[in-house]
């Protein structure tokens, strides 16, 4: 092997020296032979001549030696490459079209694959990512995954035998960084000790939380994210040990996370957040207090012990759930535990969509490849004589195959190189336009795996393209072809072309159907009435500092202060010119935030222990319904008279009225939640789409801000303007700064932006699929046009004869169109069957549209039919317009 490689190296890279040595060796051979003759008495002249005769041709000997050398095939390859490049550059139009088509196809495929790779295929960026799970509470009756009660987390962590670590994060607390100038809002999270080591992350600076710091009283320490360290503290190296004033308390910085650490999550996990600036210890009371089983703020992560499988862990957790159900029936009677691999969890909602896009871009590529195959066939037909001649002159089939493969590989390599170069540009551009709730977008990059994928695609394409004309060459025997006048079209060729057209049409139809279904679904989503007004509404999320509230836990009577602040701010906002109405809500629809409570209805028999009626809970200020435009169906809504001191009241939505009062009038009935007091239902309002557009409305209960049972510190201000609200942003900021100088404004968005953003994924995949489908339509019709043009040019003599013997132009036109229609018809038929079968796969991505949608199938068939007709009409017309005499002379 070593000898082989050194020989190869010498032959390839020291070719000159090797040749010189050979030259010298043969010359010395000549001299030796001549000297021998001389010794036998032959005269010098004669001796030299006879020596040369004995040698044979000097160059021939050298050629023979060269051909036997290791690496001779490399010479042939270089020869083939030169020949291929020469052939291709002699036909620049063909080569340019082929290379550009390939570049586009490969570039698009690489780009989409890069996204799929980053989001779905790459392992999570943690050590042993397959052993990471998320644990959730899930009602035994099934249903949604729920976040976890602190007390349950304690019990799971203590009683399990399956996990090497378990840690929890409370993604809710925000911190206001006081000190220099403007108050800054930092997105915080509280984590249990061991959280970071569960993810295998080591601090860039300092250390992580210790066991002791995870207890109340010792927990005024923070770990900063790398970007917070950079942006808020200028990456100063003495950050560890420094004191920060957060929410008016003093915290000590103990560590900074590395720049490459990000908490991979699904957008809905952390109330719409995907980035945290700082972490504090969770510091739960140990043992937990009873109320900590009734509140559910935690996301729980766990790492499997080596050798333990997910199913075993699930069995273990089921055992624990059984114990807790018996011990704490009031809270846990219906509680099950769900263990879901982290990698699977974060991409659960996007897997189908991304694979659909990958399949779509692959299909576009197939259609484009069919076009190139057609071009190659045309060229192969034109080169048939050349090939046959070479076979007749003794070129082996293998040698020809190698030549053709080299040619197609040159094409594909050029296309692939340009395609990959494009991907380096298009990937970052695409990432900027990805929906913000797509997980793991930071990990999308062209990497080795992507390049391997692209190379594989290019290699396969090159082989197939090389084989297409070869197939032709092999079919036609050397003799037949030489005898032909060189313009005939073989039956096999036209069959292959027809197959390609049928395939293109079928694939294009499948893509069009997919895009059609998605478009129809998005259209339906856009027309869904969210239950409130979206025009002229501006929203601003505020974070109230600790003098108004001291954290998210049960408050101690700061209602009045909060109400006073809100009243003052609302008064100021209403002064802004153009503002018609303004109000507060704690949970804005489509904002990704939510909260729910268990409740009882007065006079109903008590529920069994541990069984609750649940309703979504919405603290709002007076005027909220009028501001955002939720219609009042019965009774009244809140007014400024509903305060801390007035009788307790609630307003419910229609879904809640339907679910719990059926046909009866709920107004006047009383409910109880979060305390012992009964609250009167004073009105019923319309349903809103809170979680997402197109979801089933859930029961909702509105409560005046002054009467909430706990303190809500992140109110959203909603204002209705007479005109475009976006230019009121500055006035709004000023109003907030005047009312509460230390209240940071988090997000300011118009309601339209929020609605639009909430359907980002649907918009994105529909747009991409639509582009691909139209591209497919375009490329397929170019293919059809090309093939029909070719067919017409091949049959032009036949048409001439037909017209000469009396066929009308119309008859010739119909003849060509009939041929095209037959191919397109078969393609559409096959495409319809395929589309009907494949559409089911994207059923989960569709809203208000069945995967088998006759209207869509019919529409896209007609569209495709019309485009195909136009594409084949042009060549057909050319056939009909041909001068009979000229076409007869054409040969």
């Amino acid at each position: 092997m070593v000898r082989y490689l050194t020989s190869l190296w010498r032959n390839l890279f020291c070719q000159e020296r090797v040749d010189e040595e050979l030259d010298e060796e043969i010359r010395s051979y000549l001299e030796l032979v001549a000297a021998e003759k001389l010794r036998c008495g032959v005269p010098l002249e004669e001796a030299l001549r006879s020596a040369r005769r004995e040698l044979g041709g000097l160059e021939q000997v050298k050629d023979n030696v060269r051909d036997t050398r290791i690496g001779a095939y490399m010479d042939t390859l270089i020869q083939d490459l030169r020949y291929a490049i020469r052939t291709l550059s002699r036909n620049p139009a063909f080569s340019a079209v082929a290379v550009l088509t390939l570049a586009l196809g490969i570039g698009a495929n690489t780009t989409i694959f890069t996204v799929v790779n980053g989001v779905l295929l790459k392992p999570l960026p943690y050590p042993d990512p397959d052993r990471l799970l998320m644990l959730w509470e899930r009602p035994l009756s099934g249903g949604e995954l729920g976040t976890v009660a602190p007390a349950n987390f304690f019990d799971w962590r203590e009683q399990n035998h399956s996990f090497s670590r378990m840690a929890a994060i409370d993604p809710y607390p925000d911190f206001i960084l006081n000190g220099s100038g403007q108050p800054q809002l930092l997105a915080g999270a509280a984590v249990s000790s061991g959280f970071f080591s569960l993810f295998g992350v080591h601090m860039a600076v300092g250390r992580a939380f210790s066991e002791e710091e995870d207890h109340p009283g010792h927990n005024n320490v923070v770990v900063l994210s790398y970007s917070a360290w950079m942006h808020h503290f200028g990456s100063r190296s003495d950050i560890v040990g420094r004191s920060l004033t957060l929410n008016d308390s003093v915290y000590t910085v103990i560590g900074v996370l590395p720049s490459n650490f990000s908490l991979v999550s699904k957008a809905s996990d952390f109330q719409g957040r995907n980035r945290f600036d700082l972490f504090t210890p969770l510091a739960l009371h140990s043992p937990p207090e009873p109320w900590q089983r009734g509140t559910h703020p935690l996301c729980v992560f766990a790492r499997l012990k080596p050798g333990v499988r997910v199913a075993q862990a699930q069995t273990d957790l089921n055992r624990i759930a059984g114990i807790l159900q018996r011990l704490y029936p009031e809270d846990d009677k219906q509680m099950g535990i769900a263990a879901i691999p982290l990698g699977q969890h974060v991409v659960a909602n996007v897997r189908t969509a991304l694979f659909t896009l990958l399949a779509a871009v692959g299909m576009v590529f197939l259609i484009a490849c069919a076009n190139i195959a057609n071009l190659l066939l045309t060229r192969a037909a034109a080169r048939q004589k050349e090939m046959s001649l070479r076979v007749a002159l003794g070129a082996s089939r293998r040698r020809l195959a190698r030549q053709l493969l080299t040619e197609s590989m040159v094409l594909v390599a050029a296309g692939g190189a340009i395609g990959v170069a494009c991907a380096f540009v298009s990937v970052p551009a695409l990432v900027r336009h990805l929906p913000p709730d797509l997980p793991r977008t930071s990990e999308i990059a062209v990497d080795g795996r992507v390049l391997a994928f692209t190379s594989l695609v290019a290699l396969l394409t090159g082989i197939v393209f090389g084989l297409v004309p070869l197939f032709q060459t092999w079919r036609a025997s050397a003799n037949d072809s030489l005898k032909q006048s060189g313009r005939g079209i073989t039956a096999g060729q036209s069959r292959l072309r027809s197959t390609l057209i049928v395939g293109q049409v079928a694939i294009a139809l499948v893509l069009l159907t997919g895009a059609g279904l998605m478009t129809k679904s998005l259209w339906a989503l856009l027309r869904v009435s969210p239950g409130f007004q979206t025009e002229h509404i501006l929203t601003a999320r505020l974070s109230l500092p600790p003098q108004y509230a001291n954290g998210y836990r049960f408050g101690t009577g700061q209602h009045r202060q909060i109400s006073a602040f809100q009243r003052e701010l609302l008064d100021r906002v209403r002064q802004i010119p153009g503002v018609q109405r303004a109000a507060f809500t704690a949970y804005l629809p489509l904002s990704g935030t939510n909260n729910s409570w268990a409740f009882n209805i007065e006079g109903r028999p008590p529920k069994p222990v541990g069984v609750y009626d649940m309703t979504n809970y919405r603290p709002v200020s007076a005027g909220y319904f009028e501001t955002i435009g939720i219609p009042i169906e019965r009774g009244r809504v809140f007014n400024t008279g509903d305060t801390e001191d007035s009788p307790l009241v609630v307003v419910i939505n229609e879904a809640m009225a339907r679910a719990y009062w059926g046909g009866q009038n709920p107004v006047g009935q009383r409910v109880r939640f979060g305390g012992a007091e009964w609250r009167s239902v004073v009105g019923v309002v319309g349903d809103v789409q809170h979680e997402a557009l197109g979801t089933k409305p859930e029961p909702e209960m509105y409560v005046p801000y002054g009467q909430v049972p706990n303190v809500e510190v992140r109110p959203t201000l909603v204002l209705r303007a007479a005109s475009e609200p976006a230019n009121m942003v500055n006035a709004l900021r000023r109003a907030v700064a005047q009312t509460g100088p230390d209240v940071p404004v988090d997000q300011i968005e118009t309601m339209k932006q929020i609605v639009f953003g909430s359907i980002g994924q649907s918009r994105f995949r529909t747009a991409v699929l639509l582009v691909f489908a139209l591209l497919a339509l375009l490329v397929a019709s170019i293919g059809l046009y090309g093939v029909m043009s070719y067919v017409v040019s091949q049959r032009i003599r036949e048409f001439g004869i037909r017209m000469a013997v009396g066929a009308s132009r119309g008859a010739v036109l119909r003849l060509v169109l009939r041929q095209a229609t037959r191919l397109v018809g078969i393609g559409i038929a096959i495409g319809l069957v395929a589309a009907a079968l494949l559409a089911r796969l994207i059923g989960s991505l569709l809203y208000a549209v069945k995967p088998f949608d006759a209207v869509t199938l019919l529409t896209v068939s007609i569209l495709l039919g019309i485009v195909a007709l136009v594409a084949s009409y042009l060549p057909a017309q050319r056939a009909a317009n041909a001068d009979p005499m000229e076409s007869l002379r054409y040969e």
Partner: protein
Amino acid sequence: MGTSQSDLLQGTLDLLILKSLALQQMHGMGISRRIAQITNGTFEVKAGSLFPALHRMEEAGWLTSFWGESETNRRARFYRLTAAGRKQLHAESERWERISFAMASALQAT
């Protein structure tokens, strides 16, 4: 048909070259002369076949070559058997003995 014949001849030439180098190192012409001598003039190896064979066998590792001086004090390329070459000679000789024995008995059969 064509290939099998040349295979046979190539195998023969290789064996003859190995055999002629078995006793001493030689240059190209020496090998050619030696082959003629040991086959009683049956095989006249031309440079057109000799040099490709020598280079191929060297790349296969059976021979090594070096520049030296001929008996007439001329610079010439000498070839020498390697250990692998010697092994190859042994194996090839046995194979040929088997074949020639088989052929001889086949031809003698009536």
